[in-house]
């Protein structure tokens, strides 16, 4: 893509918030464009953190395997969100595996280039602090949910979080616009496939969600989910 389009794609990225055209130009020039396809992994948990990424477009799910072999879904990343940048700066192995959920494009910078950019534009480091702070808040909320909420509340909260981050308003309600299996939901909420299935089937019957007809789950009565999650 041409340079101007690249600049426009990095302009709204939180990590580069507040940079002037010179800064955005430097960021855009230093980036490598990588088209990615569904199912692809940007890197594997445990790999050396040699590059940082920002999602150009598409959706990516961040998976982490626990020491006893269970998969946990940490979060979903959409356009403008950064991946792996913290590991690059902490010089630790990547702690998770980003899995591409739909064909898209990412921008990639080497560790050296990121260092350079941060040295030239300290605002980038400040922004990184803000982004990471936001993620910590989200994780604290989820930890609190696991510690204090019944499983139905956690599943409702997870669906609402997804809706908030990636949802699309459609005629029937709010659509989660990428494939989301019951197994995915189990891994996002520290519960079992059986419990998620039972819960979604019940909500399907009550008309709260539409989870069977297409591959994209639709929340038909979002406020009802908010009540179940205890946030109304």
């Amino acid at each position, binding site marked *: 893509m041409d340079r101007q389009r690249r600049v426009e794609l990095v302009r709204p990225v*939180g990590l580069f918030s507040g940079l002037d055209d010179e800064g955005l130009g430097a960021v855009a020039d230093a980036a490598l464009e990588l088209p990615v396809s569904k199912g692809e992994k940007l890197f594997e948990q445990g790999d050396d953190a040699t590059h940082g990424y920002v999602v150009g477009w598409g959706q990516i799910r961040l998976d982490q395997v626990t020491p006893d072999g269970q998969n946990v879904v940490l979060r979903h990343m959409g356009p403008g969100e950064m991946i792996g940048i913290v590991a690059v700066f902490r010089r630790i192995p990547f702690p998770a595996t980003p899995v591409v959920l739909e064909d898209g494009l990412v921008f990639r910078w080497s560790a050296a280039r990121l260092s350079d950019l941060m040295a030239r534009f300290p605002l980038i480091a400040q922004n990184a602090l803000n982004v990471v702070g936001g993620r910590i808040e989200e994780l604290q909320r989820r930890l609190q949910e696991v510690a204090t909420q019944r499983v139905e509340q956690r599943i409702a909260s997870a669906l609402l979080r997804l*809706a*908030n981050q990636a949802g699309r308003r459609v005629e029937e309600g709010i659509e989660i616009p990428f494939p989301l299996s019951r197994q995915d939901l189990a891994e996002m909420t520290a519960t079992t496939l059986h419990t998620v299935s039972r819960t979604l089937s019940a909500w399907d019957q009550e008309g709260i969600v539409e989870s069977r007809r297409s591959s994209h789950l639709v929340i038909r009565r979002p406020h009802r989910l908010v009540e179940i999650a205890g*946030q109304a």
Partner: protein
Amino acid sequence: MTKVFTEDLSDLTVGELLRRWPAAVRIFLDYKMNCPACPIAPFMTVDEAAGEYHVDAQALKRDIEQAIGSAAPSHTTGERP
């Protein structure tokens, strides 16, 4: 007074309303509506939210207009870095 509620009301989501006129937050809380903290505020219109909370939509909108009457709209993008 700022006229927010013209024929655009059906298109204005609670999320958009609160983003542009943070002064409206107080009114939602007064009505015991949790919209300011709600993850689906970006998708619900003011009428829909009023319906879910069984609140008089006209009264709500009147009070919102009064609260934001002298407040200038916020110009931030609202996007967190």
